[in-house]
């Protein structure tokens, strides 16, 4: 077919799986060795993702037939530009999450690194699979790993948030199976390219079943993406888990967004006959409402981790607003996706860093004595806040500008919502910053009768907590990724354009998977 290695498409799935098995087998090694294996595995995955991206950048769609069964019958993995772009985003994020986890988080419970690699395994499979039922299996793998990661370290708050997350996702999985069953019953196939082809010629008596299946799928993906009525699980789960897990989970809502985009452009794309544009009526209103709800939640959040979780919801809203526009909007959204992922992860890591340095108030917006090296942490927070709200000069602003430009001939409500959301986000993060950094006081000035929680156990000069270099490495790494995305905005945006172009021509994907085998 061409000069790329024959098994390149399955490597992103295999690498984390092999690493997870290896880590499980070598669980008696010292923690330092296990950390190195985990970090090395993520570095290998980054190299694979880069190789995959370079291979598919020219527009080729790679298809890997598992067991060499021909496409509509066997399961296929498909690597197009979109999948490769998301794989690179995921692995880069995972590198800094795993580095940060080496700073003590992975000692709070057992098998952190095993679960972490399994999580990457599930995410990679979700991005690469070309089969609807295999997508369900990928979701289950990433979910069961995420249950373990979410509860890592234990504690009542974590268990409570985790219980909601697990139960809601189990119901979501059941709905996914109902949806897959309906689609199989009406279209007779589960291969995504074949679904798109069969949808064009669906029999009228099966149309209702197919539509019901498609819309059930929308509900499932909306739950994963935390779209408006289905986002209530997110703040409690993300805000209470450990920082590196929350940082990695910044990509999890994007898996839902990816599935929505894929279903929108491929399964129910323009060529799908009576099923074309099935999601059109729901997408934009729900996305705008999610954006608004996320920002209102951020405004009301009592601490930084919870605010970051609400900002994740808002970013999903903005992302899907962009995906609702035309090809230019999808391109803008795909440039915004890595930016918002890195910015959210940065906020989660910073929240944990502040918790360690504010012994009384943690990351709650209450006054506390000045944290050590406040210039450094304040500067980093300022950077993260500028990135998260999309103010100039960082990539968030560029992405927002592109989204607004793409929506220039869309209803004005989009402009109003995006600009207002940016304003509300700025207010929320300004409030957070002034509470965390400016509202400092000495221990003596505590009001009489202050709650016991506020009484400082260790008066005197605050010491820098005993953290290794990994904490700053991870945080500065994410800062570097956002800077790189800003400086390389031209090439990145051009590449996002080519992704959107490829998505706007689903017949390329269908032809790559099914070939010319007309039935």
């Amino acid at each position, binding site marked *: 077919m061409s000069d790329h290695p024959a098994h390149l498409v399955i490597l992103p799935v295999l690498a984390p799986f092999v690493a997870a098995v290896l880590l499980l087998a070598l669980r008696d090694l010292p923690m330092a060795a296990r950390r190195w294996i985990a970090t090395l595995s993520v570095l290998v995955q980054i190299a694979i993702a880069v190789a995959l991206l370079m291979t598919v950048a020219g527009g080729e769609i790679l298809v890997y037939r598992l067991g060499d069964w021909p496409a509509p019958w066997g399961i296929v993995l498909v690597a197009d530009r979109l999948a490769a772009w998301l794989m690179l985003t995921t692995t880069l994020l995972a590198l800094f999450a795993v580095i940060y986890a080496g700073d003590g988080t992975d000692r709070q419970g057992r098998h952190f690194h095993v679960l972490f690699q399994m999580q990457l395994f599930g995410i990679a499979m979700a991005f690469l699979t070309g089969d609807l*039922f295999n997508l369900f*299996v990928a979701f*289950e793998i990433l979910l*069961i790993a995420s*249950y373990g990661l979410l*509860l890592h370290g*234990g*504690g*009542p708050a974590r*268990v*409570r948030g*985790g*219980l*909601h997350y*697990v*139960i809601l996702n*189990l*119901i979501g*999985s*059941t709905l996914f*199976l*109902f949806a*897959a*069953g*309906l689609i*199989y*019953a009406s279209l007779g196939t*589960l291969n995504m390219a074949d679904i798109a082809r069969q949808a064009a010629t669906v029999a009228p008596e099966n149309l209702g079943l197919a539509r019901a299946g498609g819309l059930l799928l929308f509900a499932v993906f909306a739950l994963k993406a935390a779209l408006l009525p289905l986002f209530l699980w997110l703040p409690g789960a993300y805000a209470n888990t450990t920082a590196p897990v929350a940082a990695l989970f910044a990509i999890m809502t994007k898996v839902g967004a990816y599935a929505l985009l894929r279903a929108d452009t491929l399964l129910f794309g323009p060529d799908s006959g009576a099923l074309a544009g099935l999601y059109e009526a729901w997408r934009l209103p729900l996305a705008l409402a999610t954006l608004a709800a996320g920002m209102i939640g951020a405004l009301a959040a009592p601490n930084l981790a919870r605010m970051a979780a609400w900002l994740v919801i808002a970013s999903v809203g903005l992302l899907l607003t962009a995906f609702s526009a035309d090809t230019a909007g999808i391109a803008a959204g795909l440039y915004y996706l890595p930016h918002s992922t890195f910015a959210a992860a940065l906020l989660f890591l910073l929240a944990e860093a502040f918790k360690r340095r504010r012994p009384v108030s943690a990351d709650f917006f209450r006054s506390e004595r000045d944290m050590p090296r406040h210039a450094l942490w304040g500067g980093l927070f300022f950077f993260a806040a500028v990135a998260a709200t999309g103010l100039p000069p960082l990539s968030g602003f560029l992405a927002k500008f592109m989204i607004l430009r793409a929506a220039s001939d869309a209803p004005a409500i989009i402009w109003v919502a995006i600009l207002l959301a940016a304003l509300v986000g700025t207010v929320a993060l300004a409030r957070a910053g002034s509470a965390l950094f400016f509202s400092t006081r000495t221990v003596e000035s505590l009001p009489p009768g202050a709650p016991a929680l506020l009484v400082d156990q260790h008066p005197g000069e605050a010491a820098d907590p005993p953290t290794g270099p990994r904490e700053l490495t991870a945080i500065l790494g994410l800062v570097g990724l956002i800077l790189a995305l800003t400086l390389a905005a031209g090439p990145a945006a051009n590449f996002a354009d080519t992704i959107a172009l490829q998505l706007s021509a689903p017949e390329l994907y269908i032809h790559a998977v099914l070939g010319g085998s007309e039935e």
Partner: protein
Amino acid sequence: MEALIALSIGVLTGCGVYLALRARTFPVVLGLTLLSYAVNLFLFATGRLAIGQPPVIGGGSYTDPLPQALVLTAIVIGFAMTAFVIMLALRARAELGNDHVDGEHS
């Protein structure tokens, strides 16, 4: 037979949804289990119902083997998830001191 299967799926789903909306973790787990039974039956029925047919292609009529493979996968995954959620419910009972899904009510 179609009516009987449809009725079974409907009753199982209805009971599952009702139990999943309860406030205590044990009924919720039972509800999730009933929902997964319902979806297994449903998946089985998506290949159309046929009696006494082999699930093998070749020579005459056959019943669709693919939904049976899907059901098998769904049963395995559903079983693992149920085991996990039971353990989590027990953990929540221990950590939060009660079996309310929000961990508040005594």
